[in-house]
């Protein structure tokens, strides 16, 4: 039997352990409590460390992605040669239809500050915040397609939910076909691949493999036309009133190092964009 002092130490150890477990459980059960605490930690204790990580990420990406960026720049420069003629053609057609100029979406570039925890990728810490004009529900896109949406904005940083977050949803349609549905993560216990699901497709519609799925713009969060993924097959239907399709995602949040935060997500129709109604 341990002596009295040892028993007191043992009791203290158990009390401290129990207290920590209870606090952790309280944060799991009441996320708003945990978010307040973690927000305060990010703004105080972690601030200088995150600044160091930001410099480190910037240094790494500037070295590692130089060749890739040069290739992408060359491709973009080649593609841009045809832009003036396309723009002129677009303006001509819009004028014929009586439409105003196309709405432009401004953006903010940000570094992704990846972490070593196993849930990194479900949320991303971004190096741009309110000072750069970022707002909650701004869409986050990568070079390949949709990455996620900003949920928490602080002065210098923002936190985005990616499409791997269990609560992520986006209204979408197929190209070609125009079949509408809602995209969310394909949640699974025993899977081994990060996939998406297109749900809510009407029974009468069928979508062939290889079809591109893009954001529809419905709901006012994501602009229309951002690639989300490609259909790779039918999913498991549970309710019997809809078709479900499994998608291979266009962008991988776990590999994203630089992203664009779109600052005006909703395609708001400016004054005068449409001509007066021609109907009597």
């Amino acid at each position, binding site marked *: 039997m341990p002596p009295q002092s040892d028993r007191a*130490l043992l009791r203290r*150890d158990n*009390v*401290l*352990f129990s207290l*920590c*477990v209870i*606090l*952790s*459980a*309280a*944060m*799991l*059960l009441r*996320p708003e409590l*945990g*978010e307040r*605490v*973690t927000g305060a*930690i*990010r703004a105080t*204790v*972690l601030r200088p*460390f*995150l600044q*160091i*990580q930001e410099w*480190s*990420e910037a240094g790494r990406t500037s070295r590692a992605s130089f060749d890739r960026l040069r290739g992408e720049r060359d491709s973009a420069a080649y593609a841009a040669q045809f832009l003036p003629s396309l723009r002129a053609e677009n303006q001509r057609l819009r004028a014929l239809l009586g439409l105003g100029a196309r709405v432009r979406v401004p953006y903010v570039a940000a570094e992704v*500050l*990846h*972490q*070593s*925890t*196993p*849930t*990194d*990728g*479900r*949320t991303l*810490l971004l190096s741009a915040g309110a000072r750069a004009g970022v707002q909650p529900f701004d869409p986050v896109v990568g070079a390949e397609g949709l990455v996620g949406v900003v949920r*928490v904005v602080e002065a210098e940083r923002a*936190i985005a939910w990616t499409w*791997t*977050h*269990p609560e992520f949803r986006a209204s979408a349609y197929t190209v070609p076909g125009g079949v509408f549905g809602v995209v969310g*993560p*394909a*949640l*699974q*216990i*025993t*899977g*081994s*691949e*990060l*996939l*998406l699901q297109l749900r809510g497709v009407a029974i009468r519609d069928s979508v062939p493999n290889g079809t591109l799925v893009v954001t529809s713009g419905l709901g006012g969060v994501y602009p229309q036309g951002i690639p989300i993924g490609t259909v790779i097959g039918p999913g498991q239907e549970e309710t019997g009133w809809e078709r479900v399709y499994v998608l291979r995602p266009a962008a991988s949040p*776990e*590999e994203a190092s630089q992203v664009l935060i779109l600052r005006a997500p909703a395609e708001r129709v400016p004054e005068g964009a449409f001509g007066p109604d021609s109907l009597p």
Partner: protein
Amino acid sequence: MIAIRADRSRLWTVLGLLVLLHFAVRPRLGYPAIAPDFLLLALMLYAIRSRPGAAAVAGFLVGLVGDAVTPARVGAGALAHTLVGYLAAWGRAVFFPDNLFVNGLVIALGVWVRNAVQLLASGPAPGGLRLGLLVYAPLQALTTALMAALVLVVFQRWLDIRLEA
């Protein structure tokens, strides 16, 4: 057998260095899911030199830091690190590493347990548990254990550790 008579100030210096490495060097070490976790390594080094209560509190704080930067499910990281810290402090009596390999194995086990608890507490996600537990967690455990071996060898005198063959 390892004799642990760590000078606290030197221990804190090494722990501080690991925290700096976590934010300054880890981002340059490749794919984040398998890069060594210096914060967890610091926690394990502290836990095996401390009482279980103090190790649990340290684990809780390290977990909170993790939750602050990846708030997918706040509280999951705190819970996972609390358990790992507490078990590591208790486990030293059982594992009591008497060579570098066992030392690394204990730290690798800590990484895997942390990942398992955090993934389970965070709920289902695309990719499921198989990818996280059978692919990423073992690889991260391996890289962290290798880094632990390097740290123990380099700071053998500072940590006052005697590694016998």
